[in-house]
């Protein structure tokens, strides 16, 4: 043990070790639920003690501490029975490498038997190493509720054998949901999703994992320009592109290019390709909308999603003019979320300010979030002022 007093613990770095530590315990025969509690407690001990004396072998220290804690937990009467039944079901120690164990944890936490919210919570705790309190704050629910959600999720997957290959699609979906949530409490969920996607990309060579990581990086790069100081939204076309994080864009493009070179296209790679084309444009006017529409065509082919078709219609409006966009829109279901907002935008572009104003008002009433409602209301008010100015 080397003493290095006064070093603050880099929590993200520390949490990178968590899946490996948890996997090591499970590998030794610990049941997942108890092992997860033990690892969480070891993590808290590390944050408390490492600033004074941090070990050379951090992972080894965490495994030893968590294992001791696991034994304490299972020695307690209440847990004895569970331990006896669990250890008899102990998975055979196979030839699996540590890397595969980490991947299996991702699979377990995103198991199809879990609801989306449970899978997200369990992933953030067991793979991400966040505390229940942090997760509760991020999702604006009481800590007791989140604790129950996590323990139920653990019970749900308690019988799942870790030696079965899982479905990578569900894991990617969970990370996508985490990223989508953005900021919450004192936890930056987008940054957390990027960290987890990086870790996942290091354990598997699936090009869609790389595609998702690239997508995250390219979107995250725009975040400084996406909102004003007051929290209001800045549409892509109006963003100050000098605020975009060039380092993240460069990394995202590199990751994406390597993935595309594998020639196994998937929806995340296609979404990332669209984000990369936006990142590539020095100004909104220089956006290569023709290529973007081509990528949307790929996305429609891959997903057949009505939301993708809606976004495609808006892109068509940019590439071939607002009338073409409106024609593409007219083929879609008007009850789609953001249909009216897209309709308003295309009418505004087409110069039909009167109709656009009415549609913006309607779209504001349908908005699912406050920032968007404010943006759409402001658009309606601005166009209305323009109309009355022209009239008088």
């Amino acid at each position, binding site marked *: 043990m080397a003493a290095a007093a006064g070093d603050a613990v880099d929590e993200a770095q520390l949490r990178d070790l968590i899946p490996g530590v948890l996997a090591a315990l499970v590998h030794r025969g610990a049941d997942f639920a108890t092992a997860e509690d033990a690892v969480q407690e070891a993590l808290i001990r590390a944050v408390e003690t490492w600033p004074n004396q941090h070990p050379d072998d951090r992972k080894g220290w965490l495994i030893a501490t968590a294992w001791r804690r696991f034994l304490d937990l299972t020695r307690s009467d209440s847990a004895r029975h569970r331990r006896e039944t669990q250890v008899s079901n102990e998975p055979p120690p196979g030839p699996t490498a540590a890397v595969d164990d980490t991947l299996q944890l991702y699979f377990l936490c995103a198991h199809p038997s879990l609801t989306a919210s449970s899978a997200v919570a369990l992933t953030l705790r067991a793979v991400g190493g966040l505390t229940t309190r942090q997760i509760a704050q991020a*999702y604006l*629910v009481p800590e007791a*509720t989140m604790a129950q959600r996590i323990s139920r999720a653990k019970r749900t997957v308690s019988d799942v054998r870790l030696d079965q290959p899982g479905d990578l699609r569900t894991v990617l979906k969970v990370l996508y949901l985490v990223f989508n949530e953005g900021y919450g409490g004192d936890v930056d969920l987008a940054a957390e999703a990027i960290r987890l996607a990086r870790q996942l990309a290091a354990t598997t060579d699936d090009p869609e994992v790389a595609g998702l990581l690239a997508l995250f990086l390219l979107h995250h790069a725009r975040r400084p320009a996406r909102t004003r100081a007051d929290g209001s939204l800045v549409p892509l076309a109006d963003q100050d592109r000098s605020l975009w994080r060039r380092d993240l864009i460069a990394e995202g493009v590199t990751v994406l290019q390597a993935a595309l070179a594998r020639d196994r296209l998937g929806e995340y790679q296609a979404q990332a390709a669209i984000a990369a084309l936006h990142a590539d444009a020095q100004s909104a006017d220089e956006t290569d909308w023709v290529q973007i529409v081509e990528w949307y065509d790929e996305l429609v082919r891959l997903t057949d999603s009505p939301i993708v078709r809606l976004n495609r219609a808006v892109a068509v409006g940019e590439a071939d003019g607002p009338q073409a966009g409106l024609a593409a829109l007219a083929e879609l279901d008007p009850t789609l979320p953001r249909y009216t907002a897209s309709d308003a935008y295309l009418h505004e572009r087409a110069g039909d300010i009167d109709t656009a104003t009415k549609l913006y008002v309607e779209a504001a009433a349908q908005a699912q979030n406050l920032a968007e409602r404010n943006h759409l209301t402001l658009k309606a008010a601005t166009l209305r002022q323009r109309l009355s100015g022209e009239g008088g």
Partner: protein
Amino acid sequence: MAKYLFLKHYRGAPASVNDVPMDQWTPDEVQAHIQYMNDFAKRLQESGEFVDSQALAPDGAWVRSDGEGKPPVTDGPFAETKDLIAGWMIIDVDSYERAVELAGELSAAPGAGGKPIHEWLEVRSFLTAAPKFTD
């Protein structure tokens, strides 16, 4: 993962199926009702879907600013106010369908004669603060 508000009304909702005012129930029926509500909240806590639940007193006042330097004006309560909120529950669930399912269960709380009230609850979705990045 979306939050929904269940609003229970003193007045303003369409009539319940078992439409007997609570003050005409037997004490046991009142007890059974309270027990059902507590059990329901507890069950949602255990399922990891509970956020908040509060009841409101029926009396209240209307308040508005009367301009700078003046105290606010208060008025009411107005007996003719058509809509009167009795309380709420906030849940965090995976789908709108789940929210409706739970509101249905809450609406079946026992009332007069120990029979379900089948009262109308208003289900409202929360606007989130910010759009998703993919929006």
